[in-house]
């Protein structure tokens, strides 16, 4: 009988530390599957963020580097410039990529660095206990917006993907979502495209993933998926942005 499903080689067979219903485990696996399918495990270098996925390198079976909070794209820029034959990607959350690291993000994109970025948007700071993220929705309650995010006090959800799409150095931006199995499959296709672009030397690719955080959304795992579909996608519409 033909084997049609297996554990990815690029992923250690471990139980993750993530909360029930979290999207990180899915995202890690999709990256691993794509790396395997493209046959690039032995030349891939991943950059783990600061945030819930800080120990992503414990789960991926390829070379990885830490980066200080927000600095992943500066670290990745240098690794790729020093080793252009390797495949280099960053894996970053919304706080990392779009708050403390906005400068590094915009300038790496604007230089057109030949990199792939997996951007996990769950609209909240998970690791530190559920504070407001740059992508927190208006009205969304967090530990630092106890009455919900208000535009007068906190500004608007930051659409970093749309901003980056304006830059000529950026070749590919797509927003995907983990709200359904179909969404997960589409996310995998987008991640694969992002890696292929780098292999073809096309420049900067970013895949934004709307990913559930039941713990700090105060919802069940199923309720979180519905919230992505019914609420989050209205603010962050899915599809190819560039």
């Amino acid at each position, binding site marked *: 009988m033909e084997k049609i499903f297996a554990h990815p080689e690029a992923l250690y067979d471990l139980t993750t530390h993530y909360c029930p219903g979290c999207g990180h485990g899915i995202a890690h696996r999709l990256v691993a599957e794509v790396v395997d399918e493209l046959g690039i495990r032995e030349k*891939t270098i991943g950059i783990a963020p600061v945030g819930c996925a800080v*120990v992503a390198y414990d789960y991926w079976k390829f070379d990885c580097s*830490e980066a200080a909070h927000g*600095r992943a794209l*500066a670290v990745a*820029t240098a*690794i790729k410039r*020093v080793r252009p034959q390797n495949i280099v990607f960053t894996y970053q959350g919304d706080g990392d990529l779009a708050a403390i690291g906005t*400068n*590094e993000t915009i300038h790496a994109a604007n230089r057109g660095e030949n990199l792939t970025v997996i951007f996990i948007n769950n609209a909240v700071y998970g690791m530190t206990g559920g504070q407001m993220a740059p992508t927190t929705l208006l009205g969304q309650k967090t530990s630092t917006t106890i009455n919900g995010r208000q535009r007068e006090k906190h500004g608007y959800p930051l659409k970093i993907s749309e901003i980056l799409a304006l830059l000529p150095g950026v070749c590919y931006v797509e927003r995907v979502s983990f709200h359904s199995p179909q969404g997960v499959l589409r996310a995998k296709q987008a991640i694969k495209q992002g890696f292929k672009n780098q292999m073809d030397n096309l420049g900067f690719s970013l895949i934004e993933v709307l990913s559930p955080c039941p713990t700090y959304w105060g919802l069940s795992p199923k309720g979180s998926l519905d919230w992505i579909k019914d609420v989050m996608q209205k603010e962050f519409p899915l599809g190819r942005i560039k």
Partner: protein
Amino acid sequence: MVKKRILISGNEAIAEGAIQAGCNFYAGYPITPQNELIAYMAKYMPLSGGVFIQAESELAAINMVYGASAAGARAMTSSSSPGISLKQEGISYISGSQLPAVIVNIMRGGPGLGNIAPAQSDYFQATRGGGHGDYHLIVLAPASVQEAYDLTQTGFYLADKYRIAVMILGDGILGQMMEPLKLSVGKIKAPILKPWALTGCKGRKPNIVKSFFLREGDLEKFNLKLQKNYEIIRKKEARYEGLLLDDAKVILVAYGTMARIAKSALNKLRLAGKKVGLIRPISLWPFPEKAFQPINKKVKYLVVEMSYGQMVEDVRLAVNGYAQVDFLGRSGGGIPSEDEIITRVDKLI
């Protein structure tokens, strides 16, 4: 670079020394008074096959050095005082990840934006780590253009040998003044193998470069490993120049540009028959404590700095209360003059 002897600024000599040492990655952000260095790298780094990046910030530049070093490159950044403050986060991560790197600080006046005049007021920051955590950099303080060139090469070698960040600590005078430089082309020491570097995991287990140790006990174990490395460096890598110490009644202690002025004062004092010597620390960390041993209780030390008293603390620790330590310092644009030094020595003798 074909000529064997050239006239060049300190900033350019550091850049050329780095290239000669096999530096193949430079990232920096403009700041006075070290701009000749970044300009030299922009021109010559690509010619030698290396990577040059003008970063969007000091933070990005030091984190690019982190990435380049993690990927096995000989990596460097340079800046001046306010920019070095910005880099401290990255320097702490580099230290915590045991990455070799060379960081150049051409000091200017502070605190804050200060001014662009030469100063030595970043001594504490340089020798005490500078960022968060228990760590040290090797800090080398050249006093001439030639030494800036030579110590930069030494710096790259030590960085790789001990997997540590090395700081070349100069000031605006050293960076900008021009002196003849004898090039030592082709003297690059054999590269040190880096089996820990990120190259892709073909034929081996994956490598991870990180400074994060969450499990109970792991960080303490790692910190003890760092401390053991620092202990070896303390024993082996302390450097200084001692001048006319044997019969000296007053010993001047100064580093970098300040030591040049102290040396001029010393020469005049000796001509007048005054028994004065000079200790010039070349490595500021590790501090060359052995230069003060055996402790002679009859000797008086005069520490001269372009600061309001930073290295003087290390001198006091080195003599541990057994000898008199006096201090003369100016900063914020002021530089202790030959005459000021002579006047103070006359009072001490």
